[in-house]
């Protein structure tokens, strides 16, 4: 009877893309500012949530249709600039601006999708990179609009300098992103994405239009980048084209890969592991990057499937244990 109830509860959760574990994790995360200890920790948590969200969005393309969008940071910047400029030029409230920033990135995603629709993953990744570089170059050169390298001051979202309200905004974005993405990848859309990622030729003959589904995928993924970019702009208060540089994408990519591709939750979790560790190495200066590089190499060699790669063995292990217990109970 009781078992029935819990499984029913899980089923309802499953409908919104959550599992009991992720629900608990989100509740803990939501309450974390209360016992974070100090403002620095809240800020660090906030950055983890932000980059975790970006990594999830990145994973939707990289992990499902097999296109690592190398222009991801540029799209994030595009969202940021859009929102910031809408406020500056048209007085648009940042709340709407952020969403419009997301839509602007979506538009760019549409373009990238159109450009790359028939290409294999590696090619598409590199072409997305080119588009990103073009965007960055434009942000630099359009000084009349973006003030180029000088940097654009951006209106903060809240009056207060404290991070907690910002934390809850990005936390909300993160939870929504997680739920939406989980639902999508479990739906028929997810099926099309995976099929395209595995064998484009077969997918086409089976009726999956690469055009349509790549576009959908890119649009969603880029929307997340743009939205997060908008948030970033209104949080940090300054935008420069360097935000759009390739190294930004690599940072997101590292988190996504360490988390494990094609799981959504892996990249999110990875942000909470990698970023604090990396921050704690700050005092080592160059050595920090050497360690970073070495860790990256070792992770890829020894756990190429990332954190999410442990899902199957762990599940199998618990299944076995549970099965044994049940058997024991029966006897």
């Amino acid at each position: 009877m009781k078992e029935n109830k819990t499984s029913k509860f899980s089923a309802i959760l499953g409908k919104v893309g959550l599992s009991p574990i992720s629900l608990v994790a989100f509740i803990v995360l939501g309450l974390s500012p209360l016992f974070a200890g100090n403002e620095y920790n809240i800020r660090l948590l906030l950055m983890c949530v932000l980059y975790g969200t970006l990594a999830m969005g990145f994973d939707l393309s990289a992990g499902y249709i097999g296109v690592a969008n190398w222009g991801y940071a540029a799209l994030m910047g595009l969202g940021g600039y859009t929102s910031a400029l809408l406020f500056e030029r048209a007085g648009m409230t940042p709340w709407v601006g952020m969403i419009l920033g997301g839509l602007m990135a979506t538009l760019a995603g549409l373009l990238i999708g159109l450009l790359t629709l028939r290409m294999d993953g590696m090619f598409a990744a590199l072409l997305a990179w080119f588009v990103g570089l073009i965007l960055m170059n434009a942000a630099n050169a359009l000084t009349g609009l973006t003030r180029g390298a000088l940097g654009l001051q951006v209106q903060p979202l809240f009056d207060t300098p404290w991070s907690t309200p910002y934390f809850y905004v990005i936390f909300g974005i993160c939870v929504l992103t997680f739920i939406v993405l989980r639902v999508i990848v479990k739906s028929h859309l997810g099926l099309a994405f995976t099929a395209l990622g595995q064998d484009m030729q077969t997918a086409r003959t089976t009726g999956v239009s690469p055009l349509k589904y790549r576009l959908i995928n890119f649009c969603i993924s880029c929307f997340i980048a743009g939205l997060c970019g908008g948030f970033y702009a209104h949080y940090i208060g300054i935008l420069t084209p360097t935000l759009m540089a390739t190294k930004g994408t690599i940072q997101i990519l590292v988190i996504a890969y360490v988390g494990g591709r094609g799981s959504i939750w892996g990249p999110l979790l990875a942000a909470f592991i990698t970023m604090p560790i990396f921050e704690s190495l700050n005092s080592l200066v160059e050595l920090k990057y050497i360690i970073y590089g070495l860790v990256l190499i070792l992770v890829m060699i020894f756990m190429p499937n990332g954190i999410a790669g442990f899902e199957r063995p762990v599940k199998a292990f618990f299944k076995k244990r549970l099965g044994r217990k049940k058997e024991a109970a029966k006897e």
Partner: protein
Amino acid sequence: TVATGCGGGGASAAGAEDDVLKIAVPIPLTGESAKAGKELQDTITMAFEEVDNKVGSYTIELDFVDATSDADKGALALEEGIVKRGDEVVLSSWNSSVAVAMVDVCNKYKVPWYFSSSSSSVINEKVEGKENSYLMSKIWPKSESLAIGYFALLQELIDNGEWDASRVKYAVFADDTDFGRVFGTTVKDSMPAFNGECVFEDYTAINVTDFYTSIAKIKESGADLAFVQLTNPAAGAAFIKQAKESNLPCLQTSDCLTEAANWYELTGDAATGTLVCRSKLVNDRAMEFAKAFEDKYGYTPSATTGGINYDGAKFLIKCIEECEKKYEKVNSETLYQFGKEVLQTGGITFDDSVLVTSYEYSADNGIDPIVDEDHFYFQVIQLDGDKEVVVWPEADREAPMFVPDYAK
């Protein structure tokens, strides 16, 4: 609220340890600007070691914060310093965009920030006209104000008849960075006074070292003067050499060049005749500093990275001393008051500088130091063989400027 309850570590913890003053120094120790960061770290360390890290009754602890070149990382790192290690005052900085993000952190914890060396005007825009900004002062003025020497010099040349007043076609070529863009605007604002005609203006990505095409274009444009500003010394040196190869018939400026300690190694004689608007370490005080520095760290400090921040550190030491005298206590709060009441009103000046005549701030001038020949100015240097010759202002002049043959 929750936030204030668990934050605010910096300001409130100050009273507990009366005899230690922790200074955060947010500079880029990694990334593209790491070279500058390293030099800042060394000069500032040296400045405080010269007083045994003791100022008044306080022991100074320097907390070098790696601000990298990213706004978010820099702000986070500074926040860590303030919250976790209790830094009570901030000194120096580098990239302007990172500095803008860090201003918010300082305001939040009410930690005053002295002598930021971020030059571009975004940072001025960020704080000027705002009450209660904790960015007290910059050690570098807006870069707009710095190129004055070139134009004064040009006027002089024309007056002496060494330069034909009708040869005023000029080219602007700079990095596509805040520095470069501001430089371009400054030149274009100043040249109309000479009836100058801008025949070429372009900005290039920062890591480019192949300029043959742009040089060809400048050559075709018929420019007499080329105002060049490439921050990356690799690029600056490359431009000079390539201009020489292509026989570019212009008088050139190149602001970055002396920032690379080994510029002559990079360019050889190709740079002869080029003008550089950067102070040189010339006076006795400066030589003393340069020597001590070289002995200690094994490389020559550059005037406008190391030198100016050495001044900043020394000036801060002076401020702390005066602050203790005035308020008996030195912490975030008193240093903030000191900055507002004394520093920003011109109540304290610093003239033991290795670089400029004196640093002084005034209410009209905001957070920038006053720029003129009595206060802050950069000399104009002309490169000649492996020598750097000061040609402006007259007071410091080592030799008169010459117009190189190729530019005649």
